[in-house]
């Protein structure tokens, strides 16, 4: 599903690399925790995986495609098969919750009727069936995070990436979000979850990727 070979990522030509010589392989249908101190490169790692940045050096394969050599026009089609829960949610402020969740389906060109039904169902799934018409700013941080999760999974992505999806949630809600991610995993998605939340990872044993200062120090 995903393979990194000696990947280095620099945001600027001579800056310290955010990722440095990372080798790793994520099998299709796997579930992995991504951990490490703040600034270790977790978000950068996920950005590479959802094709928001290209590696500065090394070889990156995502869903069988060589990203380091792919032409620009090949990337949008791949991105549509990847769902992302961003660390800062990145909901569109001027669209209501339902439209935010419907967005990936619109980009994929789904029919209007099916798309709204799917988005509504997904919002019920994350417990926000009552807030379809709310604007993101009218929601709490935790509610926004669940909207972001609904948006990430609505198009049934083959690869699901979540960047700190429980940072704004209490214990009960964190458990519920992880349960939702595991449900997507059972439905066939390859899942990577970056988190600081040690107990959550311990409660739900899975493959562990640990980054420190841009290097992958644990993989298994």
């Amino acid at each position, binding site marked *: 599903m995903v393979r990194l070979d000696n990947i280095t990522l620099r945001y600027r030509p001579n800056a310290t690399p955010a990722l440095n010589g990372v080798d790793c392989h994520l099998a299709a249908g796997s579930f992995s925790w991504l951990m490490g101190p703040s600034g270790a490169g977790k978000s950068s790692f996920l950005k590479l995986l*959802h*094709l928001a940045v290209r590696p500065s050096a090394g070889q990156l394969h995502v869903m069988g495609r060589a990203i380091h050599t792919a032409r620009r026009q090949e990337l949008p089609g791949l*991105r549509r*098969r990847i769902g992302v829960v961003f660390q800062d949610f990145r909901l569109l402020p*001027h669209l209501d919750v339902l439209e935010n969740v*419907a*967005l990936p389906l619109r980009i994929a060109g789904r029919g*209007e009727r099916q798309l709204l039904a799917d988005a509504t169902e997904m919002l019920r799934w994350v417990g926000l*069936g009552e807030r379809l018409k709310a604007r993101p700013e009218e929601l709490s941080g935790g509610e926004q995070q669940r909207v972001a999760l609904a948006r990430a999974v609505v198009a049934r992505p083959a690869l699901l990436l979540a960047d700190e999806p429980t940072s704004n949630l209490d214990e009960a809600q964190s458990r519920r979000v992880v349960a939702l991610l595991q449900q997507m995993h059972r439905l066939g998605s390859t899942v990577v979850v970056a988190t600081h939340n040690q107990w959550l990872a311990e409660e739900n044993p899975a493959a562990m990727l640990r980054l420190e200062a841009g290097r992958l120090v644990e993989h298994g």
Partner: protein
Amino acid sequence: MAERTPRTRGRDPLGLKRAMADRLLPGLVAAMALLAALALAGANAAATMASRWEGGAAAAMMVQLPRSIAVAPAASRLAALPGVAEAIPLDHDRLAALLRPWLGDASGLPLPGMIELRLTSLGPASLALPAAIEATIPGAQVEAHGVWVARLSALARSLQALAWLVLALVAGVAAAMVAVATRAGIAARRATILILHDMGATDGTIARRFAGRIAWLAGLGAVLGAAAAAPLLWLLGGLAAPLLGDTLTMPWAALAALPPAAAAIAWATAHAAVRLWLRSLP
């Protein structure tokens, strides 16, 4: 929960509408369209004037001979003057026809001998000609109205060229303005575009949405500008008609073409600007 059928967001599911300077752009384009309409009308009127006056310019000068001088020999002497292409004696009937508006039926009157001169050029040499004619045929009266008309005609042609230049400038400024408005729109919706891009929207989809929106706004502005110009042109046309005869036709077709032209300029500019920016993303 109150069951409400989720309504779709019409033609703007990506919410790009609110990204634009929704009132500024149509206002600016309306002003540009008004200027373009005036330039068009100016070019049109100048062309009409020029062609009308060119007809009159052929008879560049009229020489009225004293009664003592015979017409035919005077004509050949005038034809020999520098700057004169041709000297044509006017026969009695033609002269009577020319004078009819002023004198009524004057066929019985004794009319002076008249010679029509056609000039080789309307340049400075023609200015010296009246004096040369006086010297050749003492007592001859020179009427240089034709020269004046010819100069007006040349002026009208220059005005016409100027009007086209203004039109080209207006189109250029309008395109630049749309580009600036688009850039502002992109800046205001940078985050939105980045999200759409990260979710797998193609450059073409994003650019088309922006361009469609901008084109609509510009087209709307041009309709307003053209609508404001129409009564103005009609009024000016009414004022100019007596001067130009009934040959003056207003450029209504060109006026009607302004909104689609503005929309097309806007679409192309916006599309190019958005694509250019998107190309800097991975």
